[in-house]
C-alpha cells in the first residue's frame, strides 16, 4: 500500500499560461540521468533563465509553495515522468489547473500527486487571490472534492478512479496489478500472438 492522500495543504504558486509542455518543465538535457535525485532544481530552467528572475518559480512571494496553480493543458508533450518528479522535488505536492495532459496526470497519480481542475471563473479567482495574498493557505481536499482558499471553497474535479486510488492509498499500480496473480498468465495464453501463433 502507498500513503493515503486525502488533502494537500500549502501556499500556492501561480504559473500562468496554457499548453505548458514537459520540455519546458524539465529541459531534455536533464533527462541524461539514471536516477531522479537532484532534478528538482532544474524545473523550468530555460523559462526561468529567459524570464531573468521574473518566473513564478523564482518569485519570492511564492517561495516554499506546495501547490502549483496552472492553466490549460498543463504537462502536454513527452511522457517523461521526469516532469512531475522534478516538480515534486522542487516542492509541489498538488496541482490545480484548467486541464492537464493525460500522460502527465497519470504520471502524477503514480507519484501520489493529485491534479485537480477548477471551472474557468473559479480558477481565475484563485489565481488572482493567491497573487494578491500569496501567504494564504490553499487546501486541496480530495474527500470533499474542493479547493479552499480565502476566495472560498470551490468545487474541484478529479477523475473518480484517481480520487479513489489516492484516498485509499492504492496509487502504486504495481502493487495492485500484482494482485491479479495467475489471471495475467491466463490472459497471455488466450492471445494467439504470445505463443507465436502456434509456430
Amino acid at each position, binding site marked *: 500500500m502507498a500513503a493515503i492522500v486525502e488533502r494537500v495543504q500549502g501556499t500556492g504558486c501561480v504559473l*500562468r*499560461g*496554457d*499548453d505548458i*509542455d514537459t*520540455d*519546458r518543465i524539465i*529541459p*531534455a*538535457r536533464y*533527462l*541524461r*540521468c*539514471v*536516477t*531522479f535525485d537532484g532534478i528538482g532544481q532544474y524545473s523550468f530552467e*530555460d*523559462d526561468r533563465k*529567459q524570464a531573468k528572475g521574473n518566473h513564478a518559480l523564482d518569485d519570492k512571494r511564492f517561495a516554499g509553495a506546495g501547490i502549483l496553480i496552472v492553466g*490549460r*493543458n498543463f504537462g*502536454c*508533450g*513527452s*511522457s*517523461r*515522468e521526469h516532469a*512531475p518528479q522534478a516538480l515534486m522535488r522542487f516542492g509541489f505536492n498538488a496541482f490545480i489547473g484548467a*486541464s492537464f*495532459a*493525460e*500522460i502527465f496526470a*497519470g*504520471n502524477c497519480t*503514480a507519484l501520489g500527486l493529485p491534479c485537480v481542475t477548477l471551472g474557468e471563473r473559479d480558477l481565475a479567482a484563485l489565481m488572482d487571490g493567491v497573487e494578491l495574498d500569496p501567504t494564504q493557505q490553499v487546501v486541496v481536499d480530495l474527500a470533499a472534492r474542493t479547493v479552499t482558499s480565502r476566495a472560498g471553497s470551490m468545487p474541484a474535479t478529479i*477523475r*473518480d*478512479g*484517481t480520487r*479513489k486510488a489516492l484516498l*485509499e492509498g*492504492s496509487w*502504486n*499500480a*504495481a502493487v*495492485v*496489478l*500484482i494482485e*491479479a496473480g495467475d*489471471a*495475467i498468465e491466463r490472459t*497471455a495464453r488466450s*492471445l*494467439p*500472438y*504470445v505463443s*507465436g*501463433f*502456434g*509456430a
Partner: protein
Amino acid sequence: MPAPKSLFTKVWDAHTVRELPDGQTQLFIGLHLIHEVTSPQAFAQLREMGLRVRFPQQTFATVDHIIPTDSQRRPLADSLAEEMLQHLERNCADFGIKLFDVPSGKQGIVHVIGPELGLTQPGMTVACGDSHTSTHGAFGAIAFGIGTSQVRDVLATQCLALNRPKVRRIEVSGKLAGGVYAKDVILHVIRRLGVNGGVGFAYEYGGAVIDAMSMEERLTVCNMSIEGGARVGYVNPDEIAVDYLRGREFVAKGAAFDRAAAYWRSTASDAGAHYDERVELAGREIPPTVTWGINPGQALGVDEALPHMSQVPDADRAGFAEACEFMGFAPGQHIAGTKIDVAFVGSCTNGRISDLREAARVARRGKVAPGVRALIVPGSQQVAKQAEAEGLHEIFRSAGFQWREAGCSMCLAMNPDKLQGREICASSSNRNFKGRQGSPTGRTLLMSPAMVVAAALAGKVVDVREVL
C-alpha cells in the same frame, strides 16, 4: 450476428485481465519496448521491490535518444550518456531482455525498429516509455506512451492500469494533392482539432486517403496522435499491413503466418462499429503544412499568412502573442520566405526509408544554400543500410547534406545534435516546443521531409509544389 465492434474494443477486451476497484482496467501488454532514458529508474524500483521481469520475452530494448550520430564509438564522449547506456546494458543482461544495440546492426529509434523487425503487429497492445508510442498503432495495435512508474508496472506485471478512452473516428476522404504528404495530413488534423482536442480519446484514422497510404505513411500519421492530445492512434490492418509484415524477423513463418494474418484481419473494425465521435476531413483541402509557433497545432498552409490578432479567438490570444514573440513573427506575416539556419530530416516521425527517398528526390535538384547546416539522420541502422544500398547517401552528400548514423539526433536535445542560439530549423520531427531542439531560444518549423529539403536548398521556407 454479434454486434459490430471497433478494433479498439476488440483489442481492449481481449487484453483485459480484470477490472480494478477504482474503475480502471488491468490491461495485458503484448509488446513492451524500452530505451535508455525512461527505464533506469524503473529497473531501480523493480529491484527495490524485489521483483523480476514477469515476461522478459515480450520486452525489447534499444538505444536511441542519447546516442551520438557522428561517432558511436564506446565509451561515448558524453559520460552521462555512456552511464545511461551501461545501465541499459546491465539491466537487459540481468533481467534477460533482448537489446538491439549498435553492434547488433539493428539499433535505431524505438518506433522505427519495432515495425521494421516485425515486433509490432496488428491486434497487439504495445507500451513504451515514450509518448510517440502511438506510432505502432499504424498496424492496428493499441499502443500507449507511458511514464517511468508505468514502465516499472509493465516490467513487473506485463500489465498497465488504464482508463478506457473514448474512440473518435477521423475520416480523411478523397485524395491528397501532389506535394502533400502523410506529415501534412497529421499536421492538418492537429491544426483542425487542436493540441488537446484528443485528450481522453483514441483516434481511429480511416477513409480513402489513409487506406491508400503505405505502412510507413501510416506510421507518420499515428506517430503524432499525441501532439493532438490523443494518447492512442491507429489504422485498421489491411493487406498493406499483412504484406509489410510478411518475412520480417519476428513474424511467424509458413502456416503460422497464415494463422497470424487471419487473426490480424479479424481485429479490424467491423462495418457499423460504434464510435463516440466522428470527424471528416477532405484530403483535397490539405496543403503542405508548416508550423509557425511553439506547439504543433500552430500551423499554416505554406502559402498562408499568420492571422491578425483580431482574428484570434480571445481565449487563444495570450498564447498567440507568446508564440509570435518567441518565434520573431508578426501577426499577418507570411510563413513562406522565412529564412532558415538548419535543416533536419529524421526522427520517429519521418526517419524511414520512404522519407529518405522523398528527401533525396528533392535533394537531387540543387545544393544546400550557403550558411545552412543540413542533416539527414536515418531512423535506424537498417534504414541507413538500405539508403546506402540505393545510393541515397551519395545524393545527400553531393548536395551538401551531412549523412549521419541512426538515432533521435536533433529531434530533442539529449545528444550532441543541437540548435545554437536563436537558429531556425526546418525539421521533419514532431515537436516545436520552446527549447526542444537543444537551444532554449532555438526555433523549430515542422514540415514534411520533402519540404525540409526544399527549404535547405532555398535557404528559406518554400512551397515544395513549386520545386517538384
